[in-house]
């Protein structure tokens, strides 16, 4: 049986691999591109070290795996108290029959167990804060504001408003750039943490689009043609949709 794993410290899985190899099991690094469809067992070495911080994405992974690979055995491995969970492996005290331990472990969809606190930043909290914001504006509210101006621009294009008038009406005062900057500030702060999350590919996609849209805001002229060429409106719409796809995996969004 292949056991997929995610870790940021490669020495620990290596040690783990030595141990399980003797039992006829094989450790395989998890690749986002491959997804979880062929996984029978997945081990998350937690906490992970991301963006200069130890983070614990355990509960995010469990929720995600529970939805997409409900029968998969999802385990965490670290230096926590093993008695707190049937699905937690204590690296310093691995079971003799690891194959049996995995067989006995509860499935990802089983609601009767919760991942053990592995001491890092709880990524569910981090995600929740990213979505909810620190005060007035949730990320969706930000996008609601961000998208209204492209919607007005599109409507003006439909009504054949002259491009210069469109620019004057909706872009010249810098209001839209300001709204984008508010989003970007939040994004830049949180994005590096998201590399450890199961839906990281979606975040990576958002980052790519954001970089592209940024070209428009960084251009000195604020040309409406550049806006159209880059596809700013569509880009922001895509970001919003990607975030909307991620939101259901996060607990505590207001």
């Amino acid at each position, binding site marked *: 049986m292949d056991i997929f794993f995610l870790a940021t410290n490669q020495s620990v899985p290596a040690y783990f691999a030595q141990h399980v190899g003797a039992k006829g099991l094989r450790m395989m690094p998890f690749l986002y591109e491959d997804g979880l469809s062929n996984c029978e067992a997945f081990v998350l070495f937690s906490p992970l070290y991301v963006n200069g911080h130890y983070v614990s994405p355990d509960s995010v992974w469990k929720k995600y795996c529970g939805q997409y690979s409900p029968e998969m055995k999802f385990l965490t491995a670290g230096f926590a108290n093993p008695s707190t969970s049937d699905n937690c492996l204590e690296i310093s005290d691995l079971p003799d029959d690891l194959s049996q331990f995995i067989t006995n472990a509860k499935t990802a969809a089983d609601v009767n167990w919760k991942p053990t606190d592995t001491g890092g930043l709880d990524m569910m909290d981090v995600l929740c804060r990213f979505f909810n914001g*620190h*005060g*007035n*504006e*949730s990320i*969706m*509210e930000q*996008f*609601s*504001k961000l*998208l*209204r*101006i492209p*919607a*007005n621009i599109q*409507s*003006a294009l*439909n*009504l054949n*408003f002259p491009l210069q008038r469109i620019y004057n*009406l*909706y872009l010249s005062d810098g*209001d839209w750039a300001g*709204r984008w900057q508010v989003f970007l500030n939040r994004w830049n702060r949180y994005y590096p943490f998201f590399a450890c999350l199961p839906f990281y590919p979606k975040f990576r996609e958002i980052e790519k689009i954001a970089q592209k849209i940024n070209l428009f805001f960084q251009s000195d002229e604020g040309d409406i043609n550049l806006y159209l060429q880059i596809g700013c409106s569509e880009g922001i719409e895509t970001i*919003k949709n990607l975030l909307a796809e991620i939101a259901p995996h996060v607990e*505590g969004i*207001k």
Partner: protein
Amino acid sequence: MSKESNKKNYRILIVDDDISFHKDIRQAPVFLQHYEFENAYDAKTLDKFLKSGVQFGLMVLDLVLEPTREHETPEKIKEKVETGLTRIKKIRAAWPNTPIVVATNHNILSIADKAINLGADAFLYKPEYNPEEWEKRFRRVIEDRALAQENEDLKQQFTPIQPPIAPFLGISPQIETIRQLLKVVADRPDLTVLITGETGVGKGVAARFLHYNSQTRRDKPFVTVDISNITPSLRESELFGAMKGAYTDAKTDKKGRLQMADDGILFLDEIGELDKDTQAKLLQFVQTKTIRPMGAEKDIQLDVHIVAATNKVLKEEVKNGNFRLDLYQRLKVFPIEIPPLRDRREDIEILLEHFLNVKSREFDKVFEPDVRHLLFKYDWVGNVRELENTVLSMKIQQEVRGLSLITFECLPEEIQELKRTAQSVFHIAPIKTVQADAPAEDGEAIGDVNEQQSLIMLQAIEKALIKKNGVKNDVAAELGWKSSDLVRYRIKTIHEKFPQLLSHFPEIRRRYKKLFV
């Protein structure tokens, strides 16, 4: 004409704490040209708008009108949303016909349902903002509301209005006071009401108003008896009932009007005409609340609220020995005198509205300007009834003549004369020349305008009597009056005020000699 220019202009109130939302809506291309906006950023400003009485074509309302604080729990946010929902109810109470579109970031089905149930017309989710779709939605909501209002108006227009059967109309302080008094006495059956006033002032209407305003008797009988219409010999049986065989024609038991009115109201019109025997029986009923039908052996206990009316001065009738003092005293427990229309001219407008079934602001579409002026100036000696008859007559004249407006020619002679008299008096001729064909050869001076009018009216009646050979119904029709009673009444009232005038009208004196005895 382009599709764009067909759109109406609308005034919209945006209620939202997000300043950028106001700006984005206002700057949306589809809203730029045909919409104007007012802004309320918080509940306090909204309240000011609600109290100001200003009306808007549409309101766009966010449910949460205060910033979300950090660490605010979902429960707290839900509470804010609930507050926003209750605000809809408040707005709906203040502006029942203003369309409300809720636009919020909280896309929860239950919230949308609640908002609609509380009176919102539409629910929009802000992150799905699409100016063209939203503009269509706004317009649809505005038009739907307008259509609903139009339907309601039409419904009101074509649905016969139930009681008050005859609304006791009037805006004058006198009528307002009387309405208040009638409401007070409506549920006091122990207080006999005596309504007095000239013919046509609306005594019967007042009695019906009293009935309608009685909590306990509104759904019970309202029986009217016009004493003057009942042959004196039948009055007792009509009022108190009779057993089979009580008199020659009594072949079955007959219920009297009092018994018919049991639990309700008996309106005794023209009570001054009641003979003394019946007065005695009525007095007994008023005192004991019992009657004994003719030929019956037992009394019947009744619960009837008596409302009486007369245009006679009962006090005088008592003095003259025609009316029992004790009955008079019982009847006048709660006296109400309805003043003549000429003493409350401010009521003419609302009465005209009622009889013409148009609002006064539309009078210009109904009358020529002079006509309206004359209707307000005329003395209406036959009071509201005369006004009603005149309206009817004018409308017939208008129809017959195929006119789009009621013109001077449609007015009854006596009102036309008012104008001629005024012109003569004030512009051209001395009073005497007005009476060119009036029999004033003896040189009597005609004093005030009322007297002049009376003279003119008598001339018209005299002419009509001659023309119609004294057939009183035809005379009334000739004069454009509803009934011959009005002819009689007018002659009578003029005679009371200006007896000297009648000496010049032999045909009137001959045909109505009883009036001058």
